């Protein structure tokens, strides 16, 4: 048994990039090439990704902890945080329900026009954020066909919270659906059919069979959707009207502080969003590791 495990360990240690002897093998690069490439990759990622992230946190704390926390407690800052949370609390659940519905229809059935529908769902990803905001300005703004009716109903959409919510829904529209469709297609319909044949109704099948199967993919999609919803800048910037304390979300408030040379305040607010991004990345990595084990297990057997 011990000998067997030792053999396995020796076998496992022979990775393609670690030749058993000093001479390089024909299917790997010389050591100097390997380490040069690694150095290039590390330097590039450090200059482009790690240092900007570090900059956010060092700048945020550059004026001390007092200034750091003051950025969140001053009225306009607190209002921006509240608005961002409100917008995400509306946009994310709506896109969650849509994503599950769309994935169910697309993944569990074969119908005419299916691939066209998936292309349509992806549209918001290929549209500039500025255009995503502009389409609602054109649809509901002062010059639009709808504007007299909106006035009669005392409904303000552009330069108000509803517009911000709409623009956010648009840019985060595909996240959940896009995550679930390939996952549910892979899983097929056999388990649902079994549940139905055993007497479960549609709801029971969804809650007890489908949902447990897709919960990690769903969480993954919701995380990405939420990160984008809280961080969206371009689309929201076009439609919000930048009314301080009223229609400024966190990213817009960051711009306002930065442009008025309040760098410590801008970076303090930015550090909250950067923290959210880090939590999202860590959760994403953990979920992928979990999936990775799963995939590796199925591949081994």
């Amino acid at each position, binding site marked *: 048994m011990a000998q067997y495990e030792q053999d396995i360990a020796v076998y496992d240690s022979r990775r393609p990039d670690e030749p058993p002897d000093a001479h390089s093998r024909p299917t790997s690069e010389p050591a100097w090439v390997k380490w040069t490439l*690694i150095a290039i990759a590390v330097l590039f990622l450090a200059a482009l990704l790690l240092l900007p992230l570090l900059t956010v946190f060092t700048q945020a704390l550059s004026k001390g902890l007092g200034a750091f926390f003051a950025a969140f407690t001053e009225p306009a800052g607190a209002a921006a945080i509240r608005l961002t949370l409100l917008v995400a609390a509306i946009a994310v659940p709506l896109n969650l329900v*849509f994503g599950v519905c*769309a994935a169910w229809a697309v993944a569990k059935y074969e119908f005419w026009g299916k691939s066209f529908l998936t292309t349509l769902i992806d549209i918001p990803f290929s549209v500039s954020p500025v255009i995503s905001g502009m389409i609602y300005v054109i649809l509901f703004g002062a010059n639009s066909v709808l504007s007299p009716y909106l006035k009669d109903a005392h409904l303000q959409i552009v330069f108000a919270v509803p517009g911000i919510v709409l623009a956010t829904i648009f840019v985060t529209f595909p996240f959940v659906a896009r995550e679930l469709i390939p996952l549910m297609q892979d899983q097929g319909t056999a388990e649902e059919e079994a549940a139905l044949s055993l007497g479960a109704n549609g709801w029971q099948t969804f809650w007890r069979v489908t949902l447990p199967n897709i919960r990690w993919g769903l969480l993954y999609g919701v995380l990405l959707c939420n990160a984008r919803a809280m961080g969206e800048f371009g689309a929201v910037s*076009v439609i919000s009207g930048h009314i301080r304390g009223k229609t400024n979300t966190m990213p817009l408030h960051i711009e306002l502080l930065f442009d008025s040379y309040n760098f410590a305040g801008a970076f303090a607010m930015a550090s909250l969003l950067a923290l959210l991004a880090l939590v999202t990345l860590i959760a994403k*990595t953990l979920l992928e590791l979990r999936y990775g084990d799963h995939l590796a297990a199925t591949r081994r057997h």
Partner: protein
Amino acid sequence: MPRRAASGRRAWSLLKPSVLPGFGVTLGLSLTYLTLIVLIPLAGLAIRAAALGPAQFWALATDQRTVNALWVSFGSSLIAALVNVVFGLVVAWVLVRYNFRGRRLLDAIVDLPFALPTAVAGIALSTLYGPNGWIGAPLLQLGIRVAYTPAGIVIALIFIGLPFMVRTVQPVLEELEQELEEAAATLGANRYQTITRVILPRLLPAILTGFALAFARAVGEYGSVIFIASNIPYKSEIAPLLIVIRLQEFNEPAASAIGMVMLIIAFVMLLVINLIQAWARRRYGAV
């Protein structure tokens, strides 16, 4: 008119029968939501732009400031995407082929541009590459200015596009059969020949897709660029910024004309990406 398939089966049955319930409800809800949130607003933009009439549309779209802004956007996006092809390939290669301390961390951090809000990226990059920044100050000593120059725009767009390149190439590289390289080596190829003649051609569809995705994303990018660019009209003003300026002037016709041009280009890019992937599927079986 219903078409008939050669076999005599009814080809017009749009839905393949299934015992699973809920097709009508879920498809209906999805289509309604999609129509209300995406299709009607986008159609509104198209109608507004079409209402301008061809002559006025052309005049607005070829206005010198607009043309310059489109050039700045497309030029810097092209450079950034090309830089990402080179470095994205190196990063993907290093992450897939080599084992070293910190590889996991590097792998995880590649997704940062997906998760970090663009405004945060914008102020961080403009500070880091600015005259007093950790990277900007030493570069300034050498006489190189990055922030508030066109180079700054490119830096921001490289940041935005990198994960598209890495995450498109990485899975293909992982799936590449070791046997191919062994066969090449057996047949007398040296490592350089194996890489340029065996590995790179297999990666080509993924590289093209990653390039197109990074490019398409960069053309529309707004948040991270405006902080690091000097935003001088005719010189370093990107097209999305010009749209914002036109909207602030309540000049909706001009904004919708520029928007429509960008939208058309975005859809062409989407089509190109789909064609590349279809071609790759035909040629290699998968992307």
